[in-house]
Each structure stands twice: as C-alpha cells, then as structure tokens.
C-alpha cells in the first residue's frame, strides 16, 4: 500500500499501514521533511499498524536527527504501535510513555 501522508507545518501526519512495502518511501518522506523543518514531529494517530521495517526507518531518521542535534518526536501511537515499540524497547527513545 503506498505511503499516505500530509504535512502540517512542522508536523508530519502519516496515514495507513506502515510496512515493508512502503518502508523505503517512508525513509524518503522522513528525510525530505527533516530537510525542511529540522526537528521532526511525526503524528501516528492514523496509523493502525506498523511493522519492523517501518520501525527501522523511524529509528534511522531519529539517529540522523540526533547526529544533527535535533529531535524526532512521535505522537498518537495506537496500541499496536505501542506494543511493537515496547517489545523492542524503543518506546522510550521516541518519547512514548510505557503502556499500562
């Protein structure tokens, strides 16, 4: 499924599934958005499902931002996304609270 997103100022709003099929597009979109705005705010409220390749893309983007002294923040994570983050212990680095 192709990547769907909208940009609202500094906020990048992702929609739909994030998985291996659109992970490369996700990387490109994150890089492009970062180039324009510096600190990344990624809104996941409309993302029902994310797999490990999408997670890898987000981690890459986070590391790139950190190298530049900037941040990447995730908001609106659904329970499924929370679960993946907490299973891989990556929730905290993205600023997600520990679920439950």
């Amino acid at each position, binding site marked *: 499924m192709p990547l769907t997103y909208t940009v609202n100022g500094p906020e990048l709003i992702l929609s739909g599934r994030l*998985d291996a099929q659109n992970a490369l597009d996700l990387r490109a979109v994150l890089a492009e958005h970062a180039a324009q705005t510096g600190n990344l705010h990624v809104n996941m409220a409309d993302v029902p499902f994310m797999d*490990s*390749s999408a997670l*890898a893309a987000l*981690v890459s983007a986070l*590391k790139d931002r950190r190298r530049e002294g900037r941040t990447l923040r995730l908001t609106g994570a659904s329970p499924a996304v929370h679960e993946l983050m907490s*299973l*891989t*212990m*990556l929730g905290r680095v993205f600023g997600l609270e520990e679920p439950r």
Partner: protein
Amino acid sequence: MDVTAPDPFTELLDQVVDLSDQLVFLQRLIPQALALTDEAQATGLVQQAAALINTPGAALNVRGEWLGDTPGWLRGVQPPGHAAVLPAGAVHTGAPFIGAWRLTAVLAVPLEQGWLALWGKLDFLAGERELINTLAQLLDAALRAMHGRREAERYAIQERDRRQARAVWRAVTPEALRTPPGYHLHLHSQPASDFGGDFQFQEAEWIVAGDVSGKGLPAAIITAMFASAFTVAARSASLNSTLGEALHDHLERSGAFCTLAAMQVRPDGQLRVLNIGHPPVLLRRADGRLEEVRASAPPLGTFPLLHVDVERMWLHPGDALLVYSDGLFEAEDTAGVPFGLERTRQLASQVAPTAFIRQAVAGLRGFEVGDDLTLLVLQRDPAARGVQRRLPGDLQALVALSEALREAVPPDHPALMPAELAITELFVNAVRHGGAREVTLRAHTSGTDILVTLTDDGAPFDPRSAVTREGGELREHGYGLLIAQRCAREWHYARKAQFNRQTLRLRAPDLSVLT
C-alpha cells in the same frame, strides 16, 4: 543563360565517389561500432557520418536523453515514428526571427532506443538517407551488444556475489542445529529469499537466533562478523559490554540493525537467556503456563548497548523455550489481519512443544508470510524425573508440597531435607506475607543439588532483600528466609507479569561454615 543540366555521367561518378566514401566509412564504422563501450562514443559515430554527407549538425537521443551538445529547438521536436525528412521551414530552428537563420531540413531517423537527427542543409539526398539508415541499424546493433555485455558482466558479478553471500550465510546460519543432551530441539527455517534476515547458530553451549535488517550481501557479512564477535563475547566474563562494543560500530556504519535471542543451555536444565530487541521468547511450562523473556534492550545497532538483562531459569522436564521471528506474527491473511502475538501465545500454551512448529505452519495457511520465518523449540526431555504441582495458597497444603518434592527427589538425596525446609519457608512466606492464592512447585535433581522453581501470585516481593539478620539468637521471627538463604547455593528472583518467581539451586549446607 540556361542552367546546364548536370552531366548524367558526372552525376553518376559523383555518386559512385560518394558511395565509395560511404562504403569506406561504413567499413571503418563497423569495428568502431562493435567496440562501443558507452553511448557517448555513439554520438561520435553519428557526427562522423554527418560530416561525410556534408551536414554540419548531428545529435543522438537515447531513451529520451540527448547526448552531447544539442540546440534548444531540437528538444522540442517529437521523435519520429519512421525515418523522415522534415523539410526546411517545417521546424522552427530557434531563431528569434525567421530571416536571421538559414532554413534547414532535419533528417530524423528512429532507433530502437531513441533517434538521431541531422540538420544544417536544405535537403538530404536518397543516398544520404540510405547511409544514415544503415548507420541507425548499425548503431542499434552496437548499442544492443554493448548493453548486453554490460548486463552479462553485472549479472556475472551479481551471480558471484550471490553465490558467495549464500555460502557465507549457510556457513553461519546452519539449517540444522546440534541438539544439546537432555533436550529436544526443533528448528524451522524458512527464509523469504536466498539469504539475509533471520539467522541462527550455535557456539559452545549457546544457541543464538536473531534477525538482521537489510537483506543481501551486507546482511550476510554483518552476520558473519557477528557470529565471530559473539564467539569471543560468549567466552568472556562480561557478555553485555563486549557484545555491544563489538557490534555496534559495525552495524551502525552499515545502517543495519540486528536483534538477538540467545540462550546458554546446560545439560541439567539451567538456562541463561537474553533478549535484545527480539520478539518475546516464550517459556512454556510443562502444564502449558507461559512466561515471557522480553527484550531488555533495543536491537543492536540502534543505540549503544548499555545493559542487557541475563535471565536465569531452570527448564524442568517437559518445559520448553520457544523462539520465533517477526515473520510469524506479522504474517497477514487476505483481510490484512496479522497472525499476531496473542494468537502465537495461545498456540504456544495450548499445543505441546513437539507439535508447536507443525501447528504454527499449519495455522499460517491462508496467511502471507512476507518476511523470513524462523521457529525454534527447545524442550527439556519430558521423560526425565521431575515434578510440577499447583497448590492452593493455604498452610494446609504444606504436606502436599513436601509430597510433591518427593516425587522428584529420591528419599536418600543429600539435598532433600534442606530443599524441603527451603521451599516450606518460601511457601509460608508467599502465603502469609504476599497473600498468594496459588503457589506452583517445579523441581528436578541435578547431581547433589535440587533445582526448584517456585512461583506464586502474591504481592511483588523479593524475599532475598529481607534476609539481613544473623542466626543464633533466641528470637521467634525472621528465621524462615535465613533458612532458605543458607540452603540455596543459588537464588534468583524475577517478577514476571502477575507473579513472583524464585529460581533456586538447593544443596545441603556446609554447617562447619556456620558455627
């Protein structure tokens, strides 16, 4: 004065001369064409041909790209469907006003992958058009041959790389693992492609499974490096930092991540398990109850590895560890619903370990497995002597607790009495102070030791933290945990989900040390 008609003979002679020039050109052209190594050289041939027919302007377009300098007006001209001469004046050759430039015809000849254009004179004779047609055919053949050579080379390189990568991969991730004595081991390895992604290997007592992100040759190399780094790390005392240092730089530079589920398996049921970014490792007890070993650190290569929890546990007879990759729970059915972790847990709990892989594979029918799928089951031999007993959190059950222990331990075993004492104390403690409503005893012998796992659903409490007093005083309280401490050669505590888990190695105490 009348215009003298050209002498037919002279005309013919001219044509023959032209023709022989052309033949010579073509003779020279053929070897040049065959030796083409890139498309820019083809432009040179076109320009040579143009010069031969007194045409100042020539350009070559391949796959929509003009090679070399091209006048702007040419970019606006549509590629021809067949060879044609656009008569002088038909194309506006970029002049700001018509009279400023000489009118020119344009000879446009299509190629298989583009077209060529010649211009700068009023008309093109038939013979000239023939020559350029021949040139076009030659160019097509030459470009085709050139691409073919390139493809063959690239394919040969890819094929060689692919074979190498596959050899590296298979050497590092064997399709069969050695079964440790006293256990049953089953492995289902189903890579999504030739190599890359999930891996597993053994090193001494360690069985390691993991997932490298990013497929292909780099992933295979990373895994090979990892395997050798892990070999060193596994032998060194400090597993955590060595692992982290060895791998992090390499992985980070290559942009790859690597998850890891590693278990050190001893013959008597002792395990050490660590999980770095991998899906939860499931400990399935013989009675179907599940405990999880979740990741205690994110995947290697994401962030520097600061600390990893190494969990100690006993696998009692019939207990099993289940390791699986995300290819399992991320598989999706036609409606896009994933197989999911919950279904994985249910399957693990309800199905005997020996049937887990078969049932998982069957359960995946109707699902699309998009990633590598790895399923690993390590089960302690269920036929060995041991006991697993659930008891109510009631002091009346102390008798049943002792009887259960005696199912696993022969009456003359040197650690029987200390073990009975220790587990009694811990049972009473869990019931009286933790409010436990159910306590489960699991036990088996290991030489002169008894390995015991005691789980209770009482309030979180690590009893090891409460043992501070010395013995030898005449006081009524505080002896319980002291007894447990003195009978336990090893005592690990873990809070798992909603219960406390004590993992003990019990042995007859050396009383000479105490007095």
